[in-house]
């Protein structure tokens, strides 16, 4: 049995899966701000009457770290940066808890100027009176050589218990993002750890031995120990849960597909390329902070079933504001949901009031009620369709760096749409019309997010770099920095990367069949040194692809795909 729990902003969803069937579900509004109580309550309800020893894994998508950041209920973090020469990004938002130190590492990972320990002592003195709970330490190019970050960590290890080092969070290059990511990790570290410990204790008391996995924004999971070390990985997992849930509930066809989740306030777009999710190029953005946290690509439109509908200067406008429920469900302002009720595509609780509101607005603008309702829905379809076009244009224009890629001209072209959300069924025909693609929508998507959380499997992405001139091989994500002995070719490097990814997956409980590993990119460069000897610079990016632990039995039937 797998238990999946998704804690969203309003609801907490839970599901128990046995092999490929849904055994039990749970849905309730979130209870105040006590996350642990909400989750524990849900878990207890789900396992009631079940044999606890049958539970194979517990998978959580939580908003603990996200909310801590969004509500600014975070630890006081001291930030120590070693930026070296380069662009002058401003980090003033860290305020008085920000210190720069000299010393630098270059793009190859060679130390250019060493750390001045006097500066470290000075920081210790200056910060001795400031309340600081955690440190974030980031050196430019630290993923190429973590020595300086380690040296600074060592200096402060007795002063601060929680220290985050930039190079441990991602192997990608981007100093400003590494800084923000390290800061956020340090900032939520205590909050997440407190929750995790509380949860572990409760599991022990309840005699549940199943391992716990936490959903990440990339649609994969991380084990609880890993999440305690890198809690920043657990932010913004909501869209990933929804995405994985859709993937589990919809037909697969192996092609490019567009997934649309229509909610009350927003509509979220996702894409599958050859049925594989694509990622944000660098990482997710939270509270205007750009991070290196890997995330499923998604695009959010301020348009949903409860968006505010009105005319401004003769123009029909929908959203992005939401002013409450639809009139048909006790609200005060007109929404697309009311239009759907008018057209008998949805049932409302207060259908008469809703109809009247449509009639009144229609009359003001010389339309019949039916015309206005149709216009609203058509407009909604157009807005989605225009956004889809813009998103595809942008994605298809993403920069490439090889002749092969530029000449191959692989463009993303969805051939079908998967649709979920409250008004999905009522809007299916409209969206089919405006995008001109066949549509598939599941009969029951109420607990799609919990299903997504339950079925997500651990993912790992690694960025391997080997430099035969400096005799180093590094995989920052796994903390590997080793000396190379002898030569290395691309095939061996790829093999090593695959082995490491597999090992990481197996450590997190994946069976051989579940390990869907791949080399994402691999390149080898001849480096000519001063004596015209040829050395190699090798770069390999490998990953466990996000995917489903098992495929779900399609009970309850599915709606026929249009066309």
């Amino acid at each position: 049995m797998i238990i999946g729990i998704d804690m969203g902003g309003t609801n907490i969803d839970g599901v128990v899966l046995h092999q490929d069937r849904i055994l039990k579900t749970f849905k309730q509004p979130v209870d105040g701000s006590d996350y642990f109580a909400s989750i524990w309550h849900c878990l207890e309800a789900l396992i009631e009457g079940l044999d606890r020893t049958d539970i194979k894994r517990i998978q959580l998508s939580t908003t603990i770290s996200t909310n801590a950041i969004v509500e600014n209920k975070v630890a006081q973090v001291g930030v120590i940066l070693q930026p070296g020469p380069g662009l002058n990004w401003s980090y003033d938002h860290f305020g008085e808890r920000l210190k720069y130190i000299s010393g630098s590492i270059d793009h190859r990972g060679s130390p250019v100027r060493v750390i001045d320990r006097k500066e470290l002592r000075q920081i210790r003195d200056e910060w001795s009176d400031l309340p600081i709970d955690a440190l974030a330490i980031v050196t430019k190019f630290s993923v190429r050589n973590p020595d300086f970050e380690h040296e600074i960590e060592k200096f402060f290890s007795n002063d601060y218990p929680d220290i985050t080092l930039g190079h441990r969070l991602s192997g990608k290059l981007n100093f400003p993002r590494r800084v923000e990511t390290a800061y956020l990790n340090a900032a939520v570290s205590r909050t997440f750890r407190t929750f995790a410990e509380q949860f572990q204790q409760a599991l022990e008391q309840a005699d549940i031995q199943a391992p716990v996995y936490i959903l990440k924004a990339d649609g994969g999971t991380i084990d609880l120990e890993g999440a305690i070390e890198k809690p920043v990985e657990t932010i913004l997992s909501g869209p990933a849960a929804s995405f994985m849930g859709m993937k589990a509930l919809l037909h697969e066809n192996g092609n490019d597909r567009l997934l649309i989740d229509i909610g009350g306030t927003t509509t979220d777009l996702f894409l599958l390329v050859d049925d594989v999710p694509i990622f944000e190029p660098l990482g997710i953005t939270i509270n205007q902070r750009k991070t290196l946290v890997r995330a499923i690509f998604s695009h959010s439109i301020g348009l949903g079933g409860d968006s505010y509908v009105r005319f401004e200067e003769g123009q029909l406008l929908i959203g992005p504001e939401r002013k409450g429920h639809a009139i048909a469900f006790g609200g005060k302002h007109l929404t697309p949901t009311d239009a759907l009720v008018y057209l008998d595509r949805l049932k409302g609780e207060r259908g008469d009031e809703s109809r009247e509101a449509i009639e009144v607005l229609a009359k003001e603008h010389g339309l019949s009620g039916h015309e206005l309702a149709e216009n609203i829905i058509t407009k909604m379809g157009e807005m989605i369709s225009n956004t889809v076009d813009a998103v595809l244009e942008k994605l298809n224009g993403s920069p490439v760096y090889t002749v092969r890629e530029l000449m191959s001209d692989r463009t993303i072209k969805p051939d079908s749409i998967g649709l979920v959300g409250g008004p999905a069924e009522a809007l299916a025909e409209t969206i089919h019309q405006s995008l001109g693609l066949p549509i598939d929508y599941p009969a029951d998507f109420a607990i799609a997010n919990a299903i997504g959380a339950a079925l997500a499997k651990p993912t790992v992405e690694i960025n391997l770099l080997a430099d035969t001139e400096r005799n180093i091989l590094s995989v920052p994500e796994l903390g590997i920095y080793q000396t190379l002995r002898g030569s290395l070719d691309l095939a061996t490097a790829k093999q090593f990367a695959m082995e490491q990814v597999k090992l990481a997956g197996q450590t997190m409980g994946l069976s051989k069949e579940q390990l869907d590993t791949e080399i994402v990119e691999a390149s080898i460069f001849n480096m000519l040194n001063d004596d015209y000897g040829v050395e190699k610079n090798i770069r390999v990016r490998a990953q466990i692809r996000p995917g489903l632990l098992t495929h779900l039995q399609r009970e309850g039937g599915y709606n026929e795909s249009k066309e």
Partner: protein
Amino acid sequence: MKAKNRLGLILFPAFDWAISPRHPEREERLLYTQDQLMEEGIEDIDRIEFFNPLIATDQDIERVHLAYPDVEALVSESHRIAAGGVMQAFDLVLSNKAEKSFALVRPPGHHAQRVVYGDRGFCIINNEAVGLAYARQKYGDMRVAIVDTDCHHGDGTEDIYWNDPDTLVISFHQDGRTLYPGTGPISDLGGPGAYGYNVNIPLPPGTGDEGFLYVLEHVVLPILEDYQPDLIINSAGQDNHYTDPLTNMNFSAQGYSVLNDRLNPDIAVLEGGYSIQGALPYVNTGIIAAMAGLDYSGIWEPDYHLGKWKQTDRVGQDVRSIAEAVIEIWHKKEEIAQELFRSQKKVTRQRQVYYDTAGIMEHQTQEFYLCPSCPGLDVIRSKNDQGASLVGITVPRKACPDCQTKAYELFETEQRSRVKFVLLQDQKNDRFQRATGR
């Protein structure tokens, strides 16, 4: 961080292409530059956007070059992409998708001349010229200044615009007596239709930031002020850098940044520069920051030491006297031209062009016809030591009807001469024709 100027970047390192595995123009060339740009967070700066290159077609290339035996036989996909990158750079600026653009593409192009038998100085097609010809075709006539800051004389660009008064070419370079390709003296000033609009500034080995910026202030900027171009292009070679393995100059990343800030080009195009670890990562970051209008004061080579790369007083004196000579000629160019070309109908010059990479020697005669109502036709008669030969007839964009008729007549008659190919490059009608000789 938000850029002051909307900057479009075409970063195409062609990680899967090299002239040969150990050639300086190999896959690795922009690897560290890309690393540096990514680590600096360039991708996250508001108003800096990345674009993919276009791909130059035969027609795009034939607007500029007389290719032997034809374009397809000479160029690789990478050449088409490098030129296409510059076409994109022009598109971005002229369609206002960006205010400025920078094409970081390879291989370079500024040694590629009008006639092309093969590779010279790592260049086969002139990326800027292909981009500019495309832009003039698509967006109409414009006055353009190309400022070539590569350490090697931009002899290809000089040749292409030798007789074009609408394209001012200024090249800073290490004195040709000390460096490939050996050309670029002050006295090479252009053809009869554009005399004085080819400005060479040969600099002594050892010129540093001070010297380059002196030339910029005292020669380049005043000339641009006079010329009033619609667009300024920086042919941004980066081999004046103190770490460059092929040259002997003392220019720094900070110097390149200041130069780009003051020059304020609309478009920059990477040319040479083979100090791929010590210079390119920093120089490119500096150029991007300067073009975007960002603070570049923190961009230094990590090991930079001012005292070590300061130019000597002797070099400073030489630079000042060269600057003086160049600006003096600029002011007197019309007088000199009148004297020089008085009552001539045709100006002829003989040239030898060596293709160092391809190992070919070419002998050329260029004929520039003087016309009172247009820049005039020009005809190239060329043969090389491998037995190839061609005649190229070029109708300039602003040709008068008489010259145009004359060109088509010449195209017919030349087909009776003993050459492999006769090429008609009608820039006015954007038409290219190829015929075999007798």
